């Protein structure tokens, strides 16, 4: 597609854990706010296809931001002597700080992989800040079958190794161009960032005991999972959905772990279906009143 896209990008500085963080965010569309979270080791570019989808953005304002250390968001001051290890607490604080800074009123939260995991944490811990949750390739907990230290070492390129590893999660139905655009983000991520994300994703199992407290009557939860996802399998997603009373689940037979990025056309109908399950603008306003 030639020409200028509808997506616009800006920066916002927020405070998380007492430190200033310069965050890059993008948005497109108007209407109901939908905050989109990228996966581990990647950035906002994963959402660009949906943000360029006129049918989606006609009534939805899609906003995505790069987590600190990712994409065009900087790491915090002093990072050069710091070991990046994402925690549930910092992740939640960052998301809530971005929502406050952008003045978003009860957005729908759509997150993929670790973004889906934190979406479910927020559904349990801060439901009043959101109107609903779309948890993509999301599950209660995934222990690592690999050594996360592989991806940050002085004698090898962590990004290239990380990309080669996560290629296991991309569906063979994905168009080649989008497979490689998806992997490029992993190849280009900062040193130790994928490892630090995986630390959160593969070591923090605190969500398991919280799933039962999610009230889907107030904030719906819809989980979407791809059959070619080796990390969060349909069985993992089903187990998670079963633990959340009222949660719904859709299985995508031809997609993998990065559906919005690896195979935009294949994912599109599932995302539109998910949006339809979320409260509309008017209902959100009434629920908030």
């Amino acid at each position, binding site marked *: 597609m030639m020409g200028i896209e509808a997506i616009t990008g800006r920066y916002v500085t927020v405070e998380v854990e007492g430190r200033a963080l310069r965050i890059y965010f993008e948005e497109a569309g108007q209407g109901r706010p939908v905050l989109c979270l990228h996966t581990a080791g990647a950035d906002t570019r994963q959402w660009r296809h949906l943000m360029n989808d006129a049918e989606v953005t006609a009534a939805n304002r899609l906003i995505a931001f790069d987590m600190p250390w990712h994409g065009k968001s900087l790491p915090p001051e002093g990072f050069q002597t710091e070991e990046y290890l994402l925690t549930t607490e910092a992740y939640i604080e960052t998301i809530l700080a971005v929502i406050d800074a952008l003045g978003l009123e009860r957005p729908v939260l759509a997150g993929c992989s670790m973004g889906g995991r934190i979406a479910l944490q927020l559904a349990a811990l801060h439901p009043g800040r959101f109107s609903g949750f779309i948890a993509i390739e999301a599950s209660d907990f995934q222990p690592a*079958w*690999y050594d996360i230290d*592989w991806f940050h070492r002085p*004698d*090898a390129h962590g990004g*290239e*190794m990380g*990309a*080669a*590893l996560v*290629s*296991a*999660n991309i*569906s*063979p*139905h994905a168009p080649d161009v989008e497979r490689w655009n998806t992997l490029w983000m992993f190849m280009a991520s900062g040193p130790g960032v994928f490892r630090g994300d995986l630390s959160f994703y593969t070591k923090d199992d605190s969500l398991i005991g919280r799933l039962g407290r999610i009230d889907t009557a107030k904030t719906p939860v819809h989980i979407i999972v791809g*059959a*070619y996802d*080796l990390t969060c399998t349909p069985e993992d997603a089903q187990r998670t959905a079963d633990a959340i009373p009222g949660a719904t689940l859709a299985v995508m037979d031809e997609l993998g772990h990065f559906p919005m990025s690896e195979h935009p056309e294949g994912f599109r109908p599932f995302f539109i279906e998910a949006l339809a399950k979320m409260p509309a603008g008017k209902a959100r306003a009434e629920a908030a009143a």
Partner: protein
Amino acid sequence: MIDQLAMMQARLNATPHLLRLGRLFCETVLLSVDGDEYYLTFEKGRLEAITPGPSRKTPYRFALLTDAEALAEFWRPVPKPGFHDLFGLVKMGRGQVAGDILSLVKNLRFFKEFMALPREMAKEAA
């Protein structure tokens, strides 16, 4: 299997981007299929030798152990879920990685694309 490996060898050695990715890869890899051993000797990314086993005296850096049925599905243009990646085979219990796994991970893209060459050839033939 030996014919298949010979075709993979010819294809690898004629694929510039794989030779570039594998330019530092000088190792012997054991591929075991239904218990039949094949020692694959790579030199600067080129597959220089395919030596059938069994052998108890051939050192290897890492090994991939699997079965012919799983490999046949892995090599289809569009494999079933789980069969689409070497680590999928491992996760399903249809494959095992042994030896120096870090050496495999450092050269993961190279080795995965080498192992998937028959899939590329099947796509071209379709």
